[in-house]
């Protein structure tokens, strides 16, 4: 079984006369749209906006940490800056990043449907996100908040006089936008698959979104309840978390991490879906062990709910419960290892090319592997005692969230950019951006592992002078990383007007989304597709192309 796939000649490609982008014009047609593709674009613009706000905060953090003293920002300001960075990046960028943009755009097309199951709820989800975003901007404008993104009680409930309530409510509202997205995906994947699209013909992108959606729908309400309790505690003093009233501050930790650990998987699973698509496409080969990769997503989602107390190993939970949570943490690492090796094996006997999405995917493989393995350090009980709450943690979750998820997001944006806009991004400069991002990332965050083992605590505005050199390396890397992120913003915007016309299937990928015009029609398909082939069936694609050529000729 072998397949030759060569990329089509794009010089003859023309933009389609009618597409979702030009069917209607005017602001109103966008703001009142029910079209999942337009909502995805709205989401993409909004999360990009918040990404660069969060990124500016990161720049301030790294500038502050260039010297051991709190000389650029006062302590309070520094605390507000890292809180804003965490809140914005987690709740306003990472959680919605792939699902609400690329997922929103592609899930209906991939399952062969006209739209998501509840288009109006989808639009509502974006409005909730925007409302939450405006609340968060108000928080930043009117004095900020300095709880840290974790809202740790009793600090957040009794000891701070910043905008904790507004920030908590903003995250509460943003949570509902995520619940609605997840709900929409679950119903769409269950009920709206095209004829012939069985569960095991779904692209792995859909599987990973399904797993993430389950986490969103089951986990986010717990966060919502927790934040409401924090707000009530702060405003009327109900005392659930207050030891002087018989409450238990550890209860907050349990509730918060019951959401916030699965949230890590909410963030990373959709990214893993992107990687499956990209690696398959650019090695022209089906994903090695489809079933294993699909079920490992579900396994991560299930196990992900039972590891939350590994954030609390040093907090005085019983030694035996720590034992159980450590064991489960080790188990949740296994499905991720399976995925990594299956992706590597996908390359075996492929026919590999190295377009930008593939470079980002390779970056993901390396950085996510480091992030995952350092997670094993932290899941190991005795090691966690020394490493937790230091820069080792910071480096670990940035490797997973930024090195993993953000790389996957950028891989996805580049990969589907021709589908979303109908135009190609410039290949040369985007490869440069991918490499810059990788180098900048490693230089920024690798020294932080060393700092962490030295014991440098996180969230310090000032630090002992012997840690300075490593911090300077890190800040220098952040500069490179910043350039790596600005480049796509510039050349992708440029490509909207000047990019080459992409044509329907510039990568010769097998997904249903590549069999329709780029950009797609509002209805996605001219007629309901009937699916007769499995995902990643490159022979089917080759035959289909051959037939098309004969008909046209």
């Amino acid at each position, binding site marked *: 079984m072998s397949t030759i796939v060569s990329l089509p000649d794009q010089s003859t490609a023309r933009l389609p006369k009618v597409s979702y982008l030009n069917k209607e014009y005017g602001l109103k047609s966008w703001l009142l749209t029910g079209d999942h593709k337009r909502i995805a674009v709205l989401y993409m613009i909004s999360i990009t906006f918040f990404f660069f706000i969060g990124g500016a905060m990161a720049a301030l953090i790294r500038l502050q940490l260039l010297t051991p003293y709190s000389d650029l920002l006062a302590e309070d300001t520094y605390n507000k800056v890292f809180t804003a960075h965490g809140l914005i990046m987690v709740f306003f960028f990472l959680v919605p990043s792939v699902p609400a943009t690329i997922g929103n755009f592609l899930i209906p097309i991939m399952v062969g449907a006209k739209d998501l199951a509840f288009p109006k709820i989808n639009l509502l989800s974006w409005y909730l996100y925007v409302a939450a975003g405006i609340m968060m901007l108000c928080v930043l404008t009117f004095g900020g908040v300095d709880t840290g993104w974790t809202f740790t009680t009793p600090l957040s409930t009794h000891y701070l006089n910043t905008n904790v309530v507004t920030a908590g409510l903003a995250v509460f509202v943003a949570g509902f936008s995520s619940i609605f997205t997840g709900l929409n995906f679950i119903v769409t994947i269950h009920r709206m698959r095209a004829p012939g699209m069985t569960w095991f013909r779904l692209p792995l992108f859909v599987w990973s979104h399904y797993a993430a959606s389950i986490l969103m729908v089951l986990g986010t309400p717990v966060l919502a309840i927790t934040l409401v309790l924090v707000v009530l505690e702060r405003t009327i003093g109900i005392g659930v978390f207050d030891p002087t009233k018989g409450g238990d501050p550890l209860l907050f930790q349990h509730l918060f991490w019951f959401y916030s650990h699965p949230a890590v998987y909410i963030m990373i699973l959709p990214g893993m879906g992107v990687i499956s698509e990209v690696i398959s496409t650019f090695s022209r080969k089906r994903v090695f062990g489809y079933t294993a990769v699909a079920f490992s997503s579900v396994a991560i989602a299930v196990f992900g709910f039972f590891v939350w107390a590994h954030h609390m190993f040093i907090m005085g939970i019983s030694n035996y419960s720590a034992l159980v949570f*450590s064991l489960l943490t080790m188990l949740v690492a*296994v499905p991720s290892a399976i995925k990594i090796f299956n992706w590597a094996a996908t390359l075996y006997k492929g026919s590999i090319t190295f377009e930008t999405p593939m470079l980002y995917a390779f970056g993901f493989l390396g950085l996510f592997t480091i992030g995952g393995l350092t997670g094993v350090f932290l899941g190991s009980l005795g090691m966690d005692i020394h490493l937790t709450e230091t820069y080792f943690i910071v480096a670990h979750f940035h490797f997973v969230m930024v090195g993993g998820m953000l790389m996957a997001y950028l891989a996805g944006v580049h990969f589907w950019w021709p589908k979303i806009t109908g135009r190609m991004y410039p290949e040369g400069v985007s490869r440069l951006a991918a490499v810059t991002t990788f180098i900048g990332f490693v230089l920024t965050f690798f020294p932080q592992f060393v700092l962490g083992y030295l014991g440098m605590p996180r969230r310090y505005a000032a*630090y002992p002078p012997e840690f300075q050199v490593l911090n300077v390396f890190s800040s220098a890397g952040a500069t490179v990383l910043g350039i790596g992120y600005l480049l796509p913003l510039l050349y992708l915007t440029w490509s909207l007007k000047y990019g080459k016309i992409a044509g329907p299937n510039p990568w010769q990928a097998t997904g249903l989304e590549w069999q329709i015009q780029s950009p797609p029609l509002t209805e996605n398909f001219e007629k309901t597709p009937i699916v007769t082939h499995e995902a990643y069936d490159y022979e089917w694609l080759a035959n289909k192309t051959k037939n098309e050529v004969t008909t046209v000729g």
Partner: protein
Amino acid sequence: MQHFISPVLWQFLVKWLTHFAIFPPEASTIAPYADALYFFLIVISVIGLGAVAFLVAFFSIRYRQSRNPVATQIEGSTLLEATWTIIPLILFMITFVWGALLYFRIYSPPPNAMNIYVVGKQWMWKIEHPGGQHEINALHIPIDQPIQLTLISQDVFHSFSVPAFRVKREVIPGRYNTVWFEATRPGVYHLFCTQYCGTLHSQMIGWVYAMKPEDYQAWAAGSTSGHSLAQNGERLFASLGCNSCHNSTPNAHGPNLANVYGSHVQLANGQVTTVDDAFLRDTILNPTLHEVAGYAPIMPTYQGQVSEDGLIDLVEYIKRLDSNYRIDQTIDNSAGQPVQTGATPGGTSAPPLAPGAVKP
């Protein structure tokens, strides 16, 4: 190089780039165990990452399109997948067992540990030695002697971290946490608060002074306030009126507290519980939490009337109450300081009775 930049700047750069820490000092009995696990984890990470990097790089070169224009479709391989499920699983299980053993070692204090109290508050560490030495942001300890810290916060979460000892423990309001270590090398080590605790979180730092036992003796003798914690506790006990009920008269309203520490008491709900520091603290602040069988629940709460330091004094006093209330009164505290006696009930150290102290 010297020709291009000023020699002073050159010297500065060389010094700066060659004098930075990359590995923390190993200064406790735990540290070598923690570091051994760390190096094991680094080795398996390097192997894992190396395997992935090798596969990706090798396949990318071997199967690049210019060399291999035709992809061969492969379904998968259960055997291979089982291999890369089971090998990581085994490695992770070894890590789990190893980490668990280390965790139990770090969090199980030996019975002869010397107890020191730590109160965290925004933004300082208050250290209270039973002998009456009070320190802020500094902790003096003898080496080669297990030290147990009983930690509590009087406001928000803090976390007590000494990287050179590889130990850390969350310091939580309303709850005694403990941690122990045994320093092996004299020196001065960083003490950090690692849980974000508000504005001056990054200034809630201090130093741990690990000293040779004889130096420690000298320090302890020279730094005492003159009143042991138990003596402070006794005064507090009297001024709060505790002794009006908790006395040894036959018709006392409250239980006699002599020798109560470490004993098992029957609660009104039938449970039997051990009296430890946390039990004593809880019953002072919230008497209805553990109602002792046989006594009417008439004790008022002392919530808000006693500081965390005061509670430590009371707990320390009740701990040492082994026959009646006057036992500690005659201790001449300035005479000698915590020599480890090691055999007191409850596993805590006691300042030695001064020569001539009599149990009446």
